[in-house]
């Protein structure tokens, strides 16, 4: 049975760190952080998203792809060649370790859409890339693009997250932001694509919890052209972020007012202008409201958003030190890499914590 053929529920651990200065640092720390929460995972999935790691290719989309076999790879590469200019391709470097087994073929491509194909499609560049990713993932058997943003990459596998980090040599990458996820799925066929983070373009999501609004959200996203092939919360949340931010032009703050919209009682007590805005967002995008417990960390180009559900049914703490901001399910996961915090707090339910990297630093453009 493949991931996506049934609804997959899971509990989890999340951790993240970001430099507001856009300073690049090694991925070693995020592995140490997520290791602390070993008991929140069960060895059936772990992964990382790393931002700012490919400065030399910052103008190209970095596709990370799992292949079941060589035939699948040939088919996918033929597709890529028809649609993209492939600047560089290689296996993603890994370490053989006993904790991680049964790996698929793992390849990386730096690509730019072929100008003729792009013009023919009448789409903007990012939509073109997103649609190509969907086509590969839905139509090509044995191929799965699990990372498709610029100057960022997702690294994930079946295993405990700290082992996954070692496996992918994450300590050898430098980026301005990392997120990490340890998974506790209640059932999984052990497919690597099903591990988290889940990503589309430069949006990546790590998530802890199980949302009760899932099918309402999924069916809304599918109406807007997304295909939820994995049936996981993380997948649908990623699509909602992409839809609301990229397609509808909502800011990350506005997105918080949609997916963790304030209760109507709260909205009624707001100042008139704020109330109208909150009413509008909640009403206009009511199908994107998420209910049930969740804590999510969204990575995107130049920043990060952390958000709890409205009732704060999941734990999440934020620590700050100098230019660094740390977010994790448990305080210990932050203290493990930064014992000396200037500030530590637990964000309120439904109130997003948005961290943006200083303009011009660490971003591709």
């Amino acid at each position, binding site marked *: 049975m493949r991931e996506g053929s049934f609804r997959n529920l899971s*509990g989890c651990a999340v951790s993240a760190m970001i430099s507001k200065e856009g300073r690049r640092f090694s991925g070693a720390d995020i592995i140490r952080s997520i290791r602390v929460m070993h008991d929140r995972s069960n060895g059936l999935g772990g992964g990382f998203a790393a931002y700012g790691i490919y400065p030399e290719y910052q103008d190209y989309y970095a596709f990370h792809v799992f292949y079941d076999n060589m035939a699948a790879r040939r088919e996918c590469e033929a597709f890529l060649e028809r649609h993209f200019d492939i600047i560089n391709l290689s296996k993603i470097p890994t370490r053989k370790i006993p904790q991680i087994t049964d790996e698929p073929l793992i390849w990386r491509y730096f690509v730019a859409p072929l100008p003729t194909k792009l013009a023919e499609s009448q789409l903007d560049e990012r939509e073109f890339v997103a649609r190509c990713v969907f086509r590969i993932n839905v139509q090509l058997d044995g191929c799965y693009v699990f990372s498709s943003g610029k100057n960022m990459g997702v690294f994930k596998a079946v295993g405990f997250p700290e082992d996954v980090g070692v496996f992918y040599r994450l300590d050898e990458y430098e980026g301005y932001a990392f997120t990490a996820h340890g998974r506790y799925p209640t059932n999984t066929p052990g497919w690597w694509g099903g591990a988290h983070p889940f990503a589309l373009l430069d949006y990546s999501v790590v998530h802890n*919890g199980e949302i009760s*609004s899932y099918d309402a959200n999924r069916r809304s996203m599918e109406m807007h052209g997304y295909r939820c092939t994995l049936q996981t919360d993380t997948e649908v949340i990623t699509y909602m972020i992409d839809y609301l931010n990229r397609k509808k032009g909502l800011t990350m703050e*506005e997105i918080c007012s949609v997916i963790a919209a304030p209760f109507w009682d709260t909205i009624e007590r707001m100042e008139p202008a704020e109330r109208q*805005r909150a009413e*509008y967002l909640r009403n206009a995008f009511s199908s994107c*409201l998420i209910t*049930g417990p969740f804590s999510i960390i969204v990575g995107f180009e130049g920043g990060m958003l952390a958000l709890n559900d409205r009732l704060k049914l999941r734990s999440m703490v934020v620590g700050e030190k100098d230019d660094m901001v740390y977010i994790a399910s448990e305080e210990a996961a932050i203290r493990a890499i930064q014992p000396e915090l200037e500030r530590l707090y637990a964000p309120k339910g439904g109130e997003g914590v948005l961290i943006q990297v200083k303009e011009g630093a660490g971003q591709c453009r």
Partner: protein
Amino acid sequence: MSIDFQYPEFEVERSEDCVYCGRCVKECPNGVHILTEDKKLRTRPQGCVACHRCAAFCPTGAIQIVRSRHASRANANWSEQAVTEITKQAATGGVLLSSMGNPENYPVYFDRILINASQVTNPSIDPLREPMETRTFLGAKPDTIHRDANGNILPQLPPQLSLSTPILFSAMSYGSISYNAHASLARAAEALGIFYNTGEGGLHEHFYQYGPNTIVQVASGRFGVHKAYLNSGAAIEIKMGQGAKPGIGGHLPGAKIVGDVSRTRMVPEGTDAISPAPHHDIYSIEDLRQLVYSLKEATGYQKPVIVKVAAVHNITAIASGIARSGADIIAIDGFRGGTGAAPTRIRDHVGIPVELALASVDQRLRDEGIRDRVSLICSGSIRSSADVVKAIALGADAVYIGTAALIALGCHLCRSCQTGRCAWGIATQNPELTRRLDPDEGYQRLVNLVTAWTHEIKEMMGGMGINSIEALRGNRLMLRGVGLTQKELDILGIRHAGE
């Protein structure tokens, strides 16, 4: 006469507690109880419709209505009902006329669907102590977001209806039901923060004060439709069809066209008020668009326009066409929906179950990417809060209740509305009878019903770990089927229990 003899369906049993007070004689509008000159009570059961009015008001509880034991030879094919109906038609040459919803034994899909609850992997929520939101907005959602020069959102939505709970009282015209019934519905809608619907008979001037909680209906007969009427309500509903009688128009028997009803409808007293099935200015979907926009033009684009249609075979394509006609809300009325009068054959044999219609319309609108252009109201026999939850999880934004509201007002489902002799003062214009419904009590009972259902909806939502109703809408994973075929499950878009 003898050839037309039919033994009555019900008999009256009077116990020895009877004190011969004659109350039953006064209460029965069908002349079933007769007080003889020598102070004895006789029974003429031919008129009995099992409305239970006499039993309810008998001071000694001496009356029981029982099904007749009068036997016909058993026949699984020629039911007693079939024989009776043929006899009636042979005697009169008339079209059989019935009322209320389809009583026949077709599948009730709501009864084959079960609701989910949380265990361990996510929590249920206690609705008594934690926020649990049922507020619902009906209306089109914006396609693009507009911002001012500073990048602030301009929070302008197309006109919306705001409901405290996803339940509305469905269209029942003044005429088909009484002034007091309308007063009860209007006051209850106001008290509950929901809406009632005038039906196609216009709006009595006394009820204009409830305008903010009123949906005014425009049907093919256009009874009582004028600019002030259109502007008086919070929304306008175009009635294209009705689940109880798809393809058939409204028919208010002349017996109910008296006094204020005649004035409100502007038709002569005592003549039947006919609204034909089609709007004779709508023969095609582009004509519907014309009517939708003429109503919007006449009301300055301030009111959402609802288009109500009966659930028929081709409902998905119809709904798609309506969604593209400029309508803000589509009301889909299933084949079990009630009516004050409908030809029996139409009521019992035309249309499809609303569960299937709703599920396929919701999915079709999503497939076409236009689900956000309209809200969906589901109606046609919503019998409990569980039906409400199931309808919303299948994809409805809200439900209309008609029959359930009438039962709250005292209706005993005797299905005799078309006679105009409703013993409970609801579906009648006879002043002797209409005064039996006290609007103070009626309004309170409606408030009680909807309040109770809302509590139950919250309990079920809490069990699912959902604390806002919009997260339940279309959330079909919260449903499982039992005893359904794969085809039925596919249409409903749900899995079988155990899957």
